[in-house]
């Protein structure tokens, strides 16, 4: 099948993605427009490293076909900080030691941003539930949970 053009708003900009129809949103972001901040950890929706916001909701970009985002809004990690200012969630991850190797961090940050958007005062259990689909192998999660608590506090 020939390549197709997919129109989507990515990090606030209109993009025309020229893609094979069987390629995923993850591949389109990384290989077509060079947004490599979205990571591939498993390709099967089990690790959350490729989490992006699709019309505001976190999804695994590895399990979304590129043509599925036609007419939709996609936010990746590159679209979270504005004007060289970190988002409070990003700020808290840096300050609280909520990252080590950093490969899960983009997805983790997006899950946290989406959580605080829908629930600005989450409990620890709600935080852990919201990031249960984002595996981290370095931190043991403790400092990530603290970072999200601190970000929630700061956003109030």
């Amino acid at each position, binding site marked *: 099948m020939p390549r197709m053009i997919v129109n989507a708003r990515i990090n606030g900009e209109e993009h025309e993605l020229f893609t094979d129809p069987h390629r995923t949103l993850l591949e389109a972001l990384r290989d077509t427009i060079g947004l490599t901040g979205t990571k591939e950890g498993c390709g099967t*929706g089990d690790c959350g490293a490729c989490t992006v916001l699709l019309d505001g909701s976190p999804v695994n970009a590895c399990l979304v076909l590129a043509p599925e985002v036609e007419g939709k809004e996609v936010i990746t990690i590159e679209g979270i900080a504005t004007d060289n200012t970190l988002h409070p969630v990003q700020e808290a991850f840096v300050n609280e030691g909520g990252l080590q190797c950093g490969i899960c961090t983009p997805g983790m940050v997006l*899950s946290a941003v989406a959580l605080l958007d829908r629930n600005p005062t989450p409990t620890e259990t709600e935080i852990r539930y919201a990031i*249960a*689909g984002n595996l981290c192998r370095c931190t043991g999660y403790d400092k990530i949970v603290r970072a999200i608590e601190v970000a929630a506090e700061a956003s109030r």
Partner: protein
Amino acid sequence: MRAFAYHAPSSLAEAVAVLEREGPGGRILAGGTDLLVQAKERGSVPRYVVSLRDVHELSRVSFDEAGGLEIGARVSLGEVADHPEIRRRFSAISTGASLVGSYQIQNRGTVGGNLCNAAPSADCAPPLLVLDAVIDVHGATGRREIPLVDFFVGPGRTVLGADEVLVSIRVPSPPSKSGSAYLRHTPRQEMDIAVVGVAASVALDARGDVASLRVALGAVGPTPFLAREAGARAVGQAPDDATIAEVARIAAGEARPISDQRGSAAWRRHLVEVLARRAIKIAIGRALAA
């Protein structure tokens, strides 16, 4: 992932027309969270996919007392899990939907997809089985209804024809004094596949005895299924510990588990008994509170 073609029809009729025209080797793409995993990891790459992306008529959830609940094929698991009416009246369904994959998966995956994928461990299936769900299907020869109990054929296989699209899942309004629950066992707290899943629904009569009880089992047979004997045993009995224990024991006997990487057959049979007992208790508690 190997290549395949992509179609995005804008109506149900058009989707069926694509399936008819393109012939075998097509798959319906709703959320894609199972389809793409199978294409990547198990080499089951479709020749083409028909996306429901633009079929907006399938993205509705509706409920009314008389007509019951209807969940469109494109409705996400997350929407079902969080729907206040589903949480209140169809607790087992909302629990089942809330347990599939992660939050991210629930934002893409659908109840319809969970059923069509026909995994023996599908978390939405036992709850829908105990609540008498019916599947609405549209195909080349028109519409038909399939009771969910007749829907599954084997692992990954359903009665759906190659030209048929699941349109919606309909569930009748539960009677008063009824309740349902779904429990599963997984080694992890989240992000896991059921080693065993058990759903129960209970309706009590005016005297407070069991008017009907249904138990459905997941991951202990080639398909999710109703444990019919177990349910029948309880009718007319007081909903006490002795009845519950007896029903759970019979349900365990009805299980047909296999041993695999998720657990042995013996352990699974044991878990059916434990979880059935617990799920029935919760369902009775909900019926009494209803």
